[in-house]
């Protein structure tokens, strides 16, 4: 298959590699910026020109996870000596960690992060699960008005979701779904479902129906054939769809901002709310953002092989 390459092809190939490298650097620059800021001392975060080489420190993360107040007077040297390393870093910044008795008071960040995890994971599981079943139905059975129904499902994506934010907010308040995990999960499932159905339909169509028919003839029910044969074959599609749904739910900002404030607030609206009054503490915000990026990065990395198939789906025939 590998034909002899001409020299012009080699040049083109090299040029393409260089172009991809440059594009990658451009796309990764903001991520580098966030990651480096998360480890910078406060004063270097806003220095112009930006500092590239610095002594990294984890103090922004300590600040991220704790409740602190500005100290009016200097710290008692005895208390400073007795404090663990991370508390000393806070004292060094002219603040002290709030405590109830001896228990350190945590900031809201872990709660918000947990909310994000709950909402994103549950909504992804639901959207992908329902999407898979729906897609299977559309793919395998004759359904009256199939094309219209599929178009109707897609039409939920034809409007920027924010357009319905206010009516949704009023509805949610009326039925008591605002500021609840379930409320956000329902929203994100509704939002992701059309995408999930359409993507999964493509994958289902690619699985030969002969596989299930062989199982049916062999004495299995349609349901057993679905779980034993179709689902493993659809694993790639499910993984790709899950990554996309997870990213959408994880990153969603507008509805989370409007619909939640205390109990169910997710990380995206919370992180900028830390800016608060006075000088914004960019390093703490960067630390929060950096941690927020990790789950998606890990999830995507774990499923990278499936994802490659997923984004090129339709382009390659088996």
């Amino acid at each position, binding site marked *: 298959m590998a034909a002899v390459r001409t020299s012009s092809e080699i040049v083109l190939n090299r040029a393409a590699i260089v172009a991809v490298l440059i594009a990658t650097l451009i796309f990764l620059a903001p991520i580098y910026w966030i990651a480096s800021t998360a480890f910078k001392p406060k004063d270097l975060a806003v220095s112009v020109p930006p500092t590239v080489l610095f002594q990294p420190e984890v103090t922004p993360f300590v600040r991220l996870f704790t409740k602190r107040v500005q100290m009016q007077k200097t710290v008692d040297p005895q208390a400073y000596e007795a404090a663990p390393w991370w508390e000393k870093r806070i004292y060094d910044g002219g603040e002290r960690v709030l405590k109830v008795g001896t228990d350190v008071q945590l900031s809201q960040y872990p709660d918000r992060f947990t909310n994000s995890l709950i909402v994103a994971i549950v909504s992804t599981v639901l959207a992908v699960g329902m999407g898979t079943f729906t897609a299977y139905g559309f793919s395998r059975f004759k359904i009256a008005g199939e094309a219209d129904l599929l178009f109707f499902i897609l039409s939920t994506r034809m409007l920027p979701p924010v357009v319905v934010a206010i009516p949704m907010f009023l509805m949610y308040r009326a039925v008591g779904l605002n500021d609840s995990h379930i409320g956000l999960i329902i929203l994100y499932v509704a939002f992701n479902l059309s995408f999930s159905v359409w993507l999964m339909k493509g994958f289902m169509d690619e699985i*030969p129906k*002969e*596989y299930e*028919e*062989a*199982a*049916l*003839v*062999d*004495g*299995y*029910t349609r349901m*057993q054939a679905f779980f034993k*044969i179709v689902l*493993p*074959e659809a694993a790639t599609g499910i993984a790709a769809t899950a990554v996309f749904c997870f990213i959408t739910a994880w990153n969603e900002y507008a509805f989370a901002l409007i619909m939640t404030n205390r109990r169910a607030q997710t990380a995206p609206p919370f992180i900028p709310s830390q800016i608060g009054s006075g000088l914004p503490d960019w390093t703490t915000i960067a630390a929060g953002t950096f941690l927020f990026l990790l789950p998606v990065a890990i999830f995507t990395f774990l499923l990278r092989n499936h994802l490659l198939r997923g984004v090129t789906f339709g382009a390659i025939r088996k």
Partner: protein
Amino acid sequence: MAHIELKNITKKFGGHTALTGLNLEIADGEFFVLLGETGAGKTTTLRLIAGLEKPTEGQVFIDGVDVASWGAAERDVALVLQQYSLYPRYTVRENLEFPLKPKIRRLPDAEIKDRVARAARTLRIEHLLDRKTDRLSGGEMQRVSIGRAIVRKPRVFLMDEPLSALDAKLREALRTELKNLQMQLGATFLFVTHDQIEAMSMGDKVGVLNHGRIVQTGSPQEIYNNPRDTYVASFVGSPPMNLIDGKLVDDRAVMAPTSFELPVSGGAKTGGATDGRPLVFGIRPEDVYLEGGAPVEAKVHDVENHGVEKIVTLRVGETMLRATVPARTAVEIEQPVRFAWNPDKVVMFDKGSGVSLRHAG
């Protein structure tokens, strides 16, 4: 093992009619071949018996019981397809075990092991048992597919062109194996193919399907020697039967538009063959002889070499006909030759309906 009967089956897919008034009976232990071109309705017939499709009209009987309300799982048939019946994620062993493990008729583990081993031995795939199916050759895959069917001892084997994706040599080998297997198991087989050689060599009985209708059912010899109409005559046989327009005058076939005459003997004659009626004369290429003193002169139009024999295309005016002759016969293109036919073997068809006069009565 089972007796299968289809009664007056019609199957429509939306506006398209796949089968029309189809009647079919397969005896217990019979190797029945359904022969037809692509789109004739062969696969649909198979799927109706398997329970993967429901007939629009008509009934399917298995051992005399109307199975309309039975799902595919309950019919206890085995299906072998041209491709895609093996699960790519499973090993050969897992594929063979799969039909033995459904909840409704799960076998004890020892029995499963025993059956898989026996099927593997029968099909000579024992060395492949632990291999993933995507690492098998086409012939091995098809053997495993057949294995998936025979592990179960189903009531009937349904085979949908199981050999047509294979290369010629393998196809020939598996043809013999399948036939032997069927005799050894004493099983009822319904084998679907578009390949008339497969039909002729394997079938106890052959049903020829054309545009959703059964045109003729009979033993391979009947189908070959006594085709019911010109469709069967031209579909079965390689090369197919020569079909020449003409009419009967005084026990002689007089061809038109190119006028030449050949005798028709009493053996080929039937009641409907009256003088002057427009007919189509059918003659198998092996019943056409090249002889020095023969009555008709023709030119050699084309010669095909087939090793033991040659297929010579003869041209008489506008009419072409083929003759199978021994390979040592020396002929050259455009060489004038004389030919005759075996007057006993001539089959006469009605010009209008295409139906053989022997069947019309």
